[in-house]
């Protein structure tokens, strides 16, 4: 096929795709139009039913909690997949780690060492990041936060420790065994909350804890806060696991053939 023919096929395809897109756009409902009844129903009843003012979390962990269990296990399986794919293969050998980001490439590249400014900022940010991660993970019931976001923020704190120049410190504060266990506890905890409801004779994932008396209080909302906590554990540990597997690959392991 000559370049000229390819160009004509491309132009015909892009014209067709463009026409379809314009046709679709012309048929869209107006900007901000919301036809369905469910959102309005949820807005009316959610706070009264659960005492949680973070209605998005209420939907995620309560009304469609069963879907969220599945989504949580998607991440769990993804992290497991990364761990399996990046396992030590025959012929790979570990290098001795020396320091931080300057180890990310081979010595021949002459990459400058991590600057003291980066180390300083990373160290300063680590503590506040942990606090913010826990805050976000534990306030799903009162704000538009939740376990997922909080978990990723928590994992970021561990990445900051690594950025501060301490790969060994990163390994020490997040040993693989502990990270694996925390991830399993997080994933299993969510499912266990649902099964506890079943054991009490209620439908799976029913909110069996006391809802508290004050809508919007941190202690209110029953299982919503508990599930968010478990999701935070699972997501934080999963991200730490994935990043540490990638760091192992990058910093420690070299192909034996090299």
């Amino acid at each position, binding site marked *: 096929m000559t370049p000229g023919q390819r160009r004509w096929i491309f132009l015909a395809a892009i014209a067709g795709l463009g026409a379809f897109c314009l046709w679709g756009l012309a048929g869209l409902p107006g900007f901000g139009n*919301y036809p369905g*009844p469910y959102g309005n129903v949820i807005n009316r009843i959610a706070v009264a039913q659960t005492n949680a003012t973070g209605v998005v979390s209420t939907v995620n962990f309560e009304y469609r909690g069963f879907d969220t269990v599945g989504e949580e296990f998607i991440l769990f399986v993804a992290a497991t997949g990364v761990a399996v794919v990046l396992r030590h293969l025959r012929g790979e050998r570990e290098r001795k780690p020396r320091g931080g980001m300057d180890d990310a490439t081979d010595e021949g590249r002459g990459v400058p060492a991590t600057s003291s400014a980066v180390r300083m900022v990373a160290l300063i940010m680590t503590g506040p990041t942990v606090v913010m991660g826990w805050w976000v993970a534990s306030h799903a019931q009162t704000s*538009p936060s939740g376990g*997922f976001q909080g978990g*990723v923020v928590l994992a*970021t704190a561990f*990445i900051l420790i690594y950025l501060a120049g301490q790969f060994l410190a990163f390994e020490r504060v997040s040993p693989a065994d502990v990270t694996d266990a925390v991830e399993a506890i997080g994933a299993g905890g969510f499912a266990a909350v649902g099964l506890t409801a079943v054991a009490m004779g209620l439908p799976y994932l029913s909110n069996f804890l006391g809802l508290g008396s004050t809508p919007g209080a941190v202690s209110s909302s029953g299982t919503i806060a508990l599930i968010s906590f478990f999701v935070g554990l699972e997501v934080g540990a999963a991200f730490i696991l994935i*990043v540490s597997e990638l760091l192992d690959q*990058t910093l420690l392991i070299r192909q034996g053939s090299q």
Partner: protein
Amino acid sequence: MTPGHALAVVTPYTVPTGLMDVLQVTVLVLVAAGATAVVLTRSPIRQAIVLSVYGILLAVLFLVFQAPDVTLSELTVGAVALPVMLLLALAKVSGRQK
């Protein structure tokens, strides 16, 4: 009155509709420019950084369109987690090519 407006609440912090429209259009244009910048960046390492900035732009977009929960997710995943994993993968690949 449409169902969507039935729940609108006016608070001291409510932004006037006209100003909100300007804000939304501005952020949409910025996101389009950011996406173009990501595609046009040739060096993969630079691209990861530009992608991170694009993640922040998307987060602002979600905030302006009243989805603060998606904003938090996009900030953590799009602006931090994804670029970090890309940079680590790039470091690994560049080490292997030697």
